[in-house]
């Protein structure tokens, strides 16, 4: 997302806008949500920091809206445009997220080279966003991608250009969909949202965790892009291999057989690499979820 924001910021700047673009770092971990903010205006920008009322929200990973901590929908109102890279259509997202704002989807399809492959997501997000804001011409976008990725090998720049411009072209019908918001006035500041904390005894007020292993409430299985599946026929029941090597301890042993805890498996695939009889298959997560849904429908 940092790359996407930098490309978009560069493109705005090249068009003569005042620009701020800033990534927001939290825990820098693979799989942890990352945010970046871009502000652009014809006049000087006096606001700083986090954007609380976005005109456009770009979601690179469609598993994020389901994670409250990711906060992808924070500050979204009726005039916000939500752009999401997904296999699902816009209507599905509007009803799933109960949104009344406009939702635009960049879809992966056979006709165009737009893909969900990670290396190109930055360019794809920037390309889509550039068309939605309506003030960035195609050549400016191309130049911004080239300049931003300057240190990369030529083939990588070429591939990013192809993906970014394809995303730009795919959103031709939505050109200019994003309306410029009104800046916050210094004369009329919004009051802070105070939260009154009543005085409580230390036992209740201190951030003390009273139960064991509460981390299981965090479903890190949502991080997974590929799913390891144990083939019971080939599994020889040497549970101590996969269950010990699994960094997360997400393989339980019941009745001497390993069972993967999909609520917490992050999809690192160490188990697949270590399984002596190669009894663990690798399945793309979206295909596995599709199969789960079909099974569910059949059972219902």
């Amino acid at each position, binding site marked *: 997302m940092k790359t996407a924001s930098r490309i978009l910021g560069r493109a705005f700047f090249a068009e003569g806008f005042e620009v701020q673009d800033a990534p927001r770092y939290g825990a820098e971990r693979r799989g*942890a949500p990352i945010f970046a903010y871009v502000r652009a205006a014809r006049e000087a920008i006096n606001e700083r920091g986090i954007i609380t009322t976005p005109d456009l929200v770009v979601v690179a990973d469609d598993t994020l809206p389901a994670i409250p901590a990711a906060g992808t929908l924070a500050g979204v109102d009726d005039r916000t445009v939500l752009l999401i890279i997904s296999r699902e259509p816009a209507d599905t997202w509007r009803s799933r997220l109960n949104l009344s704002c406009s939702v635009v989807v960049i879809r992966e399809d056979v006709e165009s080279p737009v893909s969900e492959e990670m290396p190109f997501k930055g360019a794809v997000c920037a390309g889509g966003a550039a068309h939605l804001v309506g003030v960035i011409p195609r050549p400016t976008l191309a130049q911004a991608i080239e300049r931003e990725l300057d240190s990369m090998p030529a083939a990588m720049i070429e591939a990013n250009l192809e993906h970014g411009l394809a995303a730009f072209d795919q959103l031709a019908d939505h050109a200019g969909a994003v309306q410029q918001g009104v800046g916050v006035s210094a004369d009329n500041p919004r009051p802070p949202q105070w939260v009154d904390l009543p005085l409580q005894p230390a036992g209740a007020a201190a951030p003390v965790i009273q139960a064991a292993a509460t981390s299981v409430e965090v479903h890190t299985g949502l991080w997974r892009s590929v799913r390891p599946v144990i083939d019971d026929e080939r599994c020889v029941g040497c549970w101590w291999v996969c269950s010990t090597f699994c960094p997360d301890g997400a393989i339980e042993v019941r009745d001497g057989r390993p069972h993967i805890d999909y609520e917490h498996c992050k999809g690192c695939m160490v188990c697949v690499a270590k399984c002596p009889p190669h009894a663990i298959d690798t399945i793309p997560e979206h295909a596995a979820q599709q199969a789960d849904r079909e099974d569910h429908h059949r059972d219902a």
Partner: protein
Amino acid sequence: MKESMYKRMKDLPSAHLLGTGTPMCAGCGGLEALHEIYDVLGSRTVFVNAAGCMTLLATYPFTPFRGSWLYTAMASAPAGAQGIRDALDILLQRRSITKEEDLDVVVLTGDGAAYGMGLSATSGAIERGLDFLYICYDNEGYGNTGQQYSGATPHGARTATSRGPSGFAGFKKDLFSIWAAHKPTYVATVIGAEPLDLARKVEKAKQLDGPRLIIALAPCPTGWDYEPRHTADIGKLAVQTGIWPLKEYVDGTVTHTRMPRPRRPVAEYLKMQGRFAHLFLDQRGKHMLAEIQARIDRYWDTVEA
């Protein structure tokens, strides 16, 4: 000392104590080691955690531990452990808790704290004969902030702060020897990819009193630049190539618990990691590879002599 209960892989614990759902990266070699260590140590432990990747293990209201956890500044974990040990001793003395209710105090830090900022506090704790266990997950750099080099970074590795054509110019500090030179009760190196060796060492450390220190090499997909699935394979290669000697120090004697024979060429270990990719490009890299190999060979020549 009792005979080890961990004779074969089959003897390893099948129930895992460390909670799932932690925010460590997928394929984290440090977490792999920690969950194996925790299974052996058990839940009657207090963890004292210095700033580092594993700071985020216990983030209110979530914790993967079954006991208490204290977070300290980067250089101060052994000092925090002293405070907890003292408090437990006072409770024991006053008979507020029984001997059975006593807890093991475990310091958990990364290499940034262990090899660098926290070294002085550790030295002091060993000097005072503090009864504690120190676990260092060593991913050879400041991984939590984007893999800047640390005192544990190996020669030639590319880091966020060693981007030149030869990578990191310094050499990995020999923390095992630095710790052992203090003559504590126990020092050992382990790795999550060798769980049986790890379990035996943690079991031994648990039975002893006084300062007991363990360094776990922690293959790091994010900082070392490799696919997360290779964490255990890279860990195995670290041992088989001899770049990570598995050893322990007890009563003034260092014993190697694995003798990699024959040793595999270190290039096999290095070429799996993006941080060493530049060593495989040109003549300069070739020279550096030969240097790295020669240093490993010299080490084992001394051990085997």
